[in-house]
């Protein structure tokens, strides 16, 4: 027994060690410009795709060195601030950043700009007031979440007609893209003269959206349409509709066009979603950073494309 325990002890010590595979850093090319990419949570497919798209794009370009940094969770603002400060110390030529918080990231980025580093803001725009306070102006390369949500919401309004009874499933309260999408859905409700019964957050999550929507449906059995601020939540909503035996009676629109909703688009369970070409967003940001490094003056909001995706053949 004692000996067996000792053997097991060795195994349970050794196993984690095997799991921690050390990553080997690449040698940096000193001649090419160095761009630091500060990403959000790589646990999120969307940002994972974005980073992979950027790495691939940089390989194709071949005229710069990219240092990508990701976080572990959506709210890990500290890691982003540390990454920016590291990049200032490393004296990179440019930083492309998808800020986890539109205000907290402004001071470190202002320090970077003062150190002569080109900063390009992608994904979520930094707060105007915070930028003014820090005395910096920088270009934002990203999609219009509000316009996108309106495109998605308008599809629902079109399908239901005026007076259609709808609910909204919101993203994380406090997240800028969640707020923008909510505003876009509100615009659709107003323009389409829809009847908004309820609006609640499900924190971007499938399981929570499933629970929250089931309960909304109990409270309002006459719901005709749902606007979900992302596709993961739309998935949970659609499962709740199926479970309630109301498949086809309640129309759902989403946002993000993730792979998991493709079969649902085909079956007509998801009416529409929005593709904001996330995989190209960081790559776009890098292109603009290179332009700025070559002396081009960039300012304001450079909008990246968004596209409405509906069921094939509809």
């Amino acid at each position, binding site marked *: 027994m004692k000996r067996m*325990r000792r053997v097991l002890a060795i195994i349970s010590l050794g196993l984690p060690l095997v799991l921690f595979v050390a990553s080997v850093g690449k040698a940096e090319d000193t001649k090419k410009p160095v761009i630091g990419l500060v990403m959000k949570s790589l*646990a999120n497919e969307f940002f994972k795709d974005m980073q992979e798209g950027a790495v691939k794009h940089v390989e194709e370009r071949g005229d710069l060195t990219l240092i990508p940094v990701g976080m572990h969770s959506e709210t890990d603002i500290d890691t982003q601030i540390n990454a920016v400060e590291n990049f200032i110390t490393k004296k990179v030529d440019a930083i492309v950043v998808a800020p986890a918080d539109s205000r907290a990231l402004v001071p470190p980025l202002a320090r970077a700009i003062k150190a002569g580093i080109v900063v390009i803001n992608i994904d979520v725009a930094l707060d105007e007031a915070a930028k003014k306070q820090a005395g910096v102006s920088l270009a934002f390369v990203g999609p219009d979440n509000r316009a996108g949500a309106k495109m998605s919401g308008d599809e629902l309004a079109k399908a239901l007609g005026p007076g259609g009874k709808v609910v909204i499933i919101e993203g994380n309260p406090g997240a800028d893209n969640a707020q923008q999408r909510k505003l876009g859905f509100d615009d659709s409700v107003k323009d389409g003269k829809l009847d908004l019964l*309820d609006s609640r957050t499900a924190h971007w999550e*499938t399981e929570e959206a*499933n629970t929250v929507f089931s*309960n909304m449906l*109990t*409270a309002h059995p006459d719901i005709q349409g749902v606007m979900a601020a992302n596709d993961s939540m739309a998935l*949970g909503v659609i499962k709740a509709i199926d479970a309630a035996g109301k498949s086809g009676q309640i129309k759902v629109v989403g946002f993000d066009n993730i792979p*998991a909703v493709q079969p649902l688009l085909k079956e007509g369970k998801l009416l529409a979603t929005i593709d904001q070409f996330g995989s190209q967003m960081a790559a776009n940001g890098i292109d603009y950073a290179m332009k700025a490094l070559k002396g081009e003056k960039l300012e304001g909001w450079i909008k990246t494309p968004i596209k409405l995706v509906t069921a094939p053949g509809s």
Partner: protein
Amino acid sequence: MLNENRGIPDQVAVSEPQRPAHAVVQRVLREAGIGIALLMLIAIFSASAPHFTDESNITNILTQITINLIMATGMTFVILIGGIDLSVGSVMALSAMVAGLVLKAETLPVPVAIVAAALTSVAVGMVCGFINGFVASFWGVPSFIVTLGMLNIARGGALEVTNARTLFEFPNAFNDFGTATLLGMPAIFLVALGLVLLGWGVLTRTVFGRLIYAIGNNEEAVRLSGHDTFIFKVAAFVISGLTVGIGAIVYMARLTIASPILGTGFELNAIAAVIIGGTSLNGGRGSLIGTFLGACLIGVLADGLILIGVGDFVRQMITGGVIILAVILDSYRARIAERTR
């Protein structure tokens, strides 16, 4: 030796109460509080929330508490021995991702894939539970820290397995299980109920169960009476892992996807159900009936508050308040129980 008649085992019968009348009073006090609170809540919502008593809403509540109930069942074993398992949400994600890959393996016929996926999920959970329990017991490390480490290992593992991709398009036969009903109840809820009853039987009707309580009360005494506490402590974590593996399969069937970020924060819901249910964080005191009622209370509260139209933020505050209230009640309950001895 302060805990003379609180379950120090001897070779024949363990902790069979010497004065049954008092034991019954104690047990009733332990679960009555939460039971009354639950009934009051149900009464309030029945009166104030439209559709609360609809059959479809009851089905919803049962479906919604299922996963938490499954995880809380395993968690009860761990908390009874005086431990805690913070890794359950992440381990659930790891189990689901590995099982999802098995489920989507094209080389296997569908029924085989489903069985293999279920077994894999449970095996992954049990292995993680074993590591938790082994490390905590062998080196005497607080389980809080060990399972915090496992929380990160399993989450990283879940992301690594599919490179952060979500798995979907499982076989229909598998997905149908998530919405199937049996005897008018959701099939997945019956799975949870079965686990609770099984766990309850083990805890109250077997020597193993009594030793779990006894270790939580006074580990040294159990050791001195000639029992090897190591195995029982590891077993509690393995049981937690087992329920997590089952929970992962239920999650996948219910939502027809497996995402590497699923289950974030589930550990806190499970712990809340156990604590609201009157199980002491110090171990040795509590029951699965309490845990069952605790999970029901959380589910009824979440459902009812939406039905009466309480906003998201206030809802979160109320849920937090209930947890604190439960712990306060528990301290009174412990005092009264002490007095009735």
